[in-house]
């Protein structure tokens, strides 16, 4: 029997700026099931990032929230770092530029797992190996700018899982990366979530990327939940025309070329 990890009821988020208010999320009802990989799909302006920030309690001060998020899994609002890890699109901006990456990861373990520094630092090395950073021993002492975009995202993931959270929220974690690195990072996330039994919320604009590993898919458009269901069902029998258009508009290597005379 599936257990509810978090429940969104009538969640509405509006941003106020210069006297006007714009609604980013409108009356969203959605359950997150414990242990599932849930993909949140949406294009720009869909509200998908606002949803991630609302779950993480990271909405800016000018956001006006109504409705509620219940956390039966915790019985309280989750604490960043300890209860959930957050993987940002731009790992470079989420890491401290003047602190070696090993210390940043160790800090999370020290604070939330109550480890002594030495033990936490050892955990940071193990985590760097686990996210497959080459030469983890040396990488501990590297600064973020010395790493490639893909390596920085691996560090971001290591830091997000350092306190063994039960929930991982990844907001477009691969959209700043090239496709080969994207494939590696997605495989890594899937593996970590499976091994640790984490619940994963994966936010992406790419329905094909989600189709490869999500258990369930929730499609958002203009702040509203369009449809949600098991990935296979949503993809093979979309209930909503918008979901169907996302599937049709997807381009992969089996898509017929747009140019003429190139079929041979």
């Amino acid at each position: 029997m599936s257990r509810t990890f978090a429940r969104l009821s009538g969640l509405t988020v509006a941003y106020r700026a210069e006297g006007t208010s714009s609604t980013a999320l409108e009356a969203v009802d959605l359950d997150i099931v414990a242990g599932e990989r849930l993909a949140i799909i949406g294009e720009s302006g869909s509200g998908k990032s606002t949803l991630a920030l609302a779950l993480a309690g990271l909405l800016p001060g000018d956001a006006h929230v109504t409705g509620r998020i219940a956390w039966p899994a915790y019985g309280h609002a989750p604490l960043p770092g300890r209860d959930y890890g957050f993987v940002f699109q731009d790992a470079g901006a989420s890491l401290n530029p003047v602190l070696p990456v090993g210390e940043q990861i160790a800090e999370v373990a020290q604070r939330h797992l109550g480890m002594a520094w030495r033990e936490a630092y050892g955990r940071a090395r193990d985590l760097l190996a686990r996210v497959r950073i080459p030469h983890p021993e040396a990488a501990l002492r590297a600064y973020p700018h010395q790493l490639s975009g893909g390596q920085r995202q691996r560090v971001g993931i290591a830091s997000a899982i350092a306190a063994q959270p039960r929930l991982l929220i990844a907001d477009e974690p691969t959209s700043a990366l090239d496709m080969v690195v994207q494939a590696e990072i997605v495989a890594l996330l899937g593996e970590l979530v499976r091994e640790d039994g984490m619940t994963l919320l994966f936010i992406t604009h790419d329905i094909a990327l989600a189709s490869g590993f999500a258990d369930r898919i929730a499609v958002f458009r203009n702040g509203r939940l369009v449809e949600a269901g098991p990935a296979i069902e949503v993809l093979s029998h979309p209930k909503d025309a918008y979901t169907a258009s996302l599937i049709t508009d997807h381009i992969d290597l089996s898509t017929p070329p747009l140019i003429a005379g190139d079929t041979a």
Partner: protein
Amino acid sequence: MSAPLLSATAISRTYAGSGRRVVALDGASITVARGETLGLVGPSGSGKSTLARILLRLVEPDAGRIDFDGVDLLSLRGEKLRTMRRRIQMVFQEPLAAFNSRATVGSALADPLRIHGIVSQSERPAAIAHLLERVGLDPALASRAIHEISGGQRQRVAIARAIATKPDLIVLDEAVSALDVSVRGKILELLVGLQREHGIAYIFVSHDLAVVRAISHHIAIMEAGRIVEHGRAHDVVADPQSATGRALVAAVPRLVLT
């Protein structure tokens, strides 16, 4: 087989900074046929954007040669280079950064018409309206500011600006990468339609092999500043010969429906 529109041969470029040398291009060679699209694809840092900028003469190579329609492109200076620029245009990823965002759509399109003397001043408003129509936009958009219109509309204006000078070649650097998929498909169709109508050749730079495949006749794959594979689009995708080509093919997310 007619001579290619453009052939770049053994292009090299090294960047020097803070005590170390970075080889961006290491003897890269490509050819582009008239009225066809060459897709240039590769991982981050493979040198594809540097090569695109060299072809546009925005960056000078350390070595190599570029022939464009029988002209030694790298030898051009001053007036001759300016005249050539109308024949090779560009569209970048982020149109907001490519425009003065407070300019109007109309003035952004008037610039190339004026600079290259395409039409007289009195004919400009009609020419601008015509350009907007050709990229599927309402001519009334001419009075709007660049920052007021949507990202998809902005990329159409960037394409309108590029075709304003009736170029033989447009270099598109990640031109659809920042767009929503629903908008992306329409922009790709627009590009293909303009190519068919006017015989424009494209160099389409992207990290996304599937998008490149959809609109390219030929594909060149880059890795570490070199062209590791260059062939017909169908062949490169169906049977990649290089390790990078195989990795790119494998990395394209497939829609899993079962």
